């Protein structure tokens, strides 16, 4: 273990240097060794990704190394445990983004993933043979994501979110059989929900992970794990309800009673933040947490047209809430009563058309 940690320390230093001025001193053989060490790190990641004890030890070591490197190099970017899994990518990116990287090194990089075109420097680095194919693979995926194909009943999510969600789901599935998988999955989902880079897209990704599987009504361990995690993260849940399409939320409510309760709870909070303006004759938002009356009605409209069980549940609950407010038919007395009358109006309109 000591040796592994020592090696990781050297590779971290190597990667730190790759984005500094000092990379000028590198030549082809230096960079070849750097890629071989990066490859080693990827092996380490795959070996210990699901081993909580060793993983923690490595993470502690990395934290320590990062602290030291930050003192040495001002613009140092921390190397995380998951970075180890894609270490060659990290190195490649750092080299290509570094203007100090010597042309001979860039030229060698070119040579490593191009077909041997008679220049004599074909396969210099290990493991780059598929990179050319990967370039077109990436673009191919992007092109297909942009196509205007109706995916049918997929909870209103686009292909991109479903694909990302599906990759996340697979990763969680791999972690489940391991001991202490709960904490590993929790850490993974925490890191996703806390990532600053794309605040909005984690909701879609998580929803994608929940909706991507074929049989969405069968009991599923992975899904339950994610729902349980969501239950203990009300902020994430709230932002999901704010961001995701209503159709997606309805689908999720159909899948899990846990989610349905939490979702309806949020809807109740939004409703309680509405106040009736007598002069305007409208429900208005009284504090920052609310949503407009029309949005709230939209959420309930999807819930009451989704299917038998969810529909019946929601209607019963709405009626109970209306009764709790006194059961008046007069507009402006109970938000629930008004939502119900709004819904019945939409329904009668729909049946007429």
């Amino acid at each position: 273990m000591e040796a592994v940690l020592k090696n990781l320390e050297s590779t971290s230093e190597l990667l730190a240097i790759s984005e500094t001025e000092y990379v000028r001193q590198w030549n082809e053989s230096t960079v070849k060794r750097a890629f071989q060490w990066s490859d080693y790190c990827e092996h380490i990641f795959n070996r210990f990704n699901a081993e909580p004890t060793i993983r923690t030890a490595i993470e502690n070591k990395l934290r320590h190394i990062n602290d030291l490197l930050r003192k040495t190099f001002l613009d140092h970017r921390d190397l995380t445990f998951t970075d180890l899994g894609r270490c060659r990518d990290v190195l490649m990116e750092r080299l290509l983004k570094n203007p100090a990287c010597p042309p001979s090194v860039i030229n060698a990089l070119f040579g490593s993933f191009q077909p041997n075109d008679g220049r004599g420097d074909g396969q210099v680095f290990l493991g780059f043979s598929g990179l050319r194919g990967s370039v077109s693979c990436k673009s191919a995926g992007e092109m297909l994501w942009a196509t205007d194909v109706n995916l049918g009943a997929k909870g209103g999510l686009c292909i991109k979110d479903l694909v990302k969600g599906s990759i996340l789901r697979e990763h969680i599935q791999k972690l489940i059989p391991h001991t202490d998988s709960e904490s590993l999955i929790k850490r993974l989902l925490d890191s996703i929900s806390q990532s600053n880079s794309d605040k909005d897209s984690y909701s879609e990704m998580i929803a994608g992970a929940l909706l991507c599987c074929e049989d969405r009504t069968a009991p599923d361990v992975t899904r339950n794990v994610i729902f349980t995690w969501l239950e203990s993260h009300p902020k994430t849940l709230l932002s999901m309800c704010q961001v995701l399409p209503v159709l997606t939320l309805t689908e999720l409510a159909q899948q899990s009673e846990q989610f349905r309760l939490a979702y309806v709870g949020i809807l109740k909070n939004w409703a309680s933040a509405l106040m009736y303006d007598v002069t305007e004759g409208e429900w208005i938002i009284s504090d920052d947490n609310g949503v407009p009356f029309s949005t709230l009605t939209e959420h309930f409209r999807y819930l009451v047209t989704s299917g038998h069980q969810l529909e019946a549940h929601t209607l019963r609950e709405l009626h109970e809430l209306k009764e709790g407010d006194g059961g008046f038919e007069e507009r402006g007395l109970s938000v629930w009563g008004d939502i119900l009358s709004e819904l019945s109006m939409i329904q009668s309109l729909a049946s007429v058309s």
Partner: protein
Amino acid sequence: MKAPKTVQRRGTLRYAGFTPPTVITTNGGEARIKQHPVCGGGKFHLLLISLIQQVSGMASRDKIEPFPKPLVQFWMGKACEWSEATVPSAQLDACRHLERLRGFLQEVLGALRLAASVADALQALPFVGQLLGRLCCVPCVTADEASSTLLLQCLRSLFSPAPQTTIERKANDWIRKTMCHLLTADEERCCVMKHVGLPSEEYNTDSLTKTVTLLTEAVNRGCGSVRTPSERCLCDGIHSLSLTCIPLVTRPEAAPLIGALLRRPVSCDRAQLSEEFVETVFTSFLSKKLHLDVHCAGALWRHSLSSLERALFHLLRSALSLSRADLRGLDQQVNDSLLPQACAQHCSIFLVVNEIFRSTVLELEESAVLRMLIQSFTRCFLTALAAQDPEVGYQGHREVPQEAWLQHLTHVSTQLQLATTEFEDRDDRPRQGHRHCGPTVLPARPAGLLVRQKASISSITSAPLTDRPKIASLSTDAFTTGGSVFEVWFLLVQGGGWVDVAAQLLASTEPHTSSSSSSYSSSSSSAALLWLLTFFYHPTNRGHQRTQQWERMQRVWGDLRGLCLRPVTPPPPHPPPVELEAVAESLHSSSSSTSKLLLLRLLLNLAIFCPSQCDTTILQLIRKMSEKKKKKEEEEGVEEEEVVSMRREAECLLAAVAAEPNSGTLASARVQARLRTLEDTLWNAFSQWREVPLRSPRLPNPPFTHHSTPPHPTPPLEMVPSVSKTTARAVAVW
């Protein structure tokens, strides 16, 4: 440094008429280019121009032929349009231009590689930096593996491992950034990868596979699940999806989606596939870059009739240009084309293929290879049919006992004689209105399947799919009558094994010693077999003069029998030279080329299957023929073709015999030994007739009009100018 002449030979010579663009063209896109985030093309580009102008005095100007201005303008315009557009239609336009773009990039790469230095390259091709930079930002272009490889190779050609000048350093810097854009993931994509520690290569493949799965499900779902008319039809977007798939056609990850698109039933008018997509799939399939299963291939051919015609013509062409007849190789080729299997699955495909074979056989009646191909095709088709429906048992020739064969073929021959006489009698009588086709003259056994196949054809002719002109309707009423004879004859061509067996049986008949009743029946069945063979080579009395040939064949066969099947045992090892000469002379007197082919068949079968050892005699006869040929050949060039066709015939006959090694009816060891001797000796004999290079024969036009798909702008084969003329000439014989 390489000579500029090489460039000219590569095809740039045609651009020589254009003046070299010393000043950069200021097309519409120029001003906007500068703002582009990734390629930074404009800035770099303008910088390059100023640098080039500085160094232009130093650089020698005659290294690379400049590209023509309109061509460069065209591609620059396209690159700008594609890289800046946000609407999907621009991507689709890029998909349509992919193939031409590859060609252009290949030329650019060739020119870049000839350049002595980067400055030299940029001076000759001042547009190149901007063009490459922009193309690297077009997903449709980079999604195509060939294009992205070319782009990377071009970039590499512009990269200086040891930069000396400012321009080289600037170029390097820009190439580094472009590579970074191409190879590394953007922030959004990075997200999942970063959290789960997935390398980009794995992530890209994985995400493409998953995308393909999702889209395949959507495509397979069709529009059956649309509940209300207001709901968006699920077929929306299928056309543009098929266009988007053009760069992915040969990618294994995309195979399920390609298959789903092809197999999609065309029940909804919004679900049309783009022509370019179908064309790309077809050409990739023909060039073996794309593997399709039978279902997908069948679906493809039903989408585009022209692709079916081209697939069959591809098969015909490759079979006809085989350097030597090889039955197993041919079977393999036929099976690999997936056409027989698709025919077994889809009646419409079968009908089209059958019609093309018919019209081809009318043009190339004497081609033994074509007949062999049609036989091979029929065999593969029947096997596929039997595999599909076990109730339709397909019996090969081997399982049928010899007596049954003799009885069957005699019966066939007798029926055919009656039928042809009837047809021809009717044909001679003055015409009275519309004539009906002749009675079914086909035997019931063991041809049951073929009869059923024939029956199925005629039962389907009234089906809607056959509204294309049938070959029979190409000609006049006279042909319609002849058409019935043709049908029968074509059936013999398809089940060519019968004719092979007839020749074998004829050659292996024991010589009769007394005038018993059995000898009578034996001689009558021999006559029937001989008639069947004569009919096969001379089906009509119009061009083929069957009656005269039949009389001649009886005489010649009598002579040959006299020579080879003597009742005296053992026969003399060498027949008297006088007799041999006489027979050889009578063989030479054959007038038509088809009768020579028939004689060759008789001779070869005698040499292999004759109960008494007579191969020496036969070889002598063939040699005598070859001697005579030699003289004739010098006189007339026409003879050459005859020699080739005879050689082909011999090849095919021997190949057919060799392909049936376990023929239980015959002493196979003896047959094998004789076959080997014959093959060895015969090739020497034939090679003495001067090696004539085999030309791929001219194929007729596909006989059909395209109903669903418009004809492809460039016809796949060198077309005969008028179908009706050439086919009608061949048809007139019938």
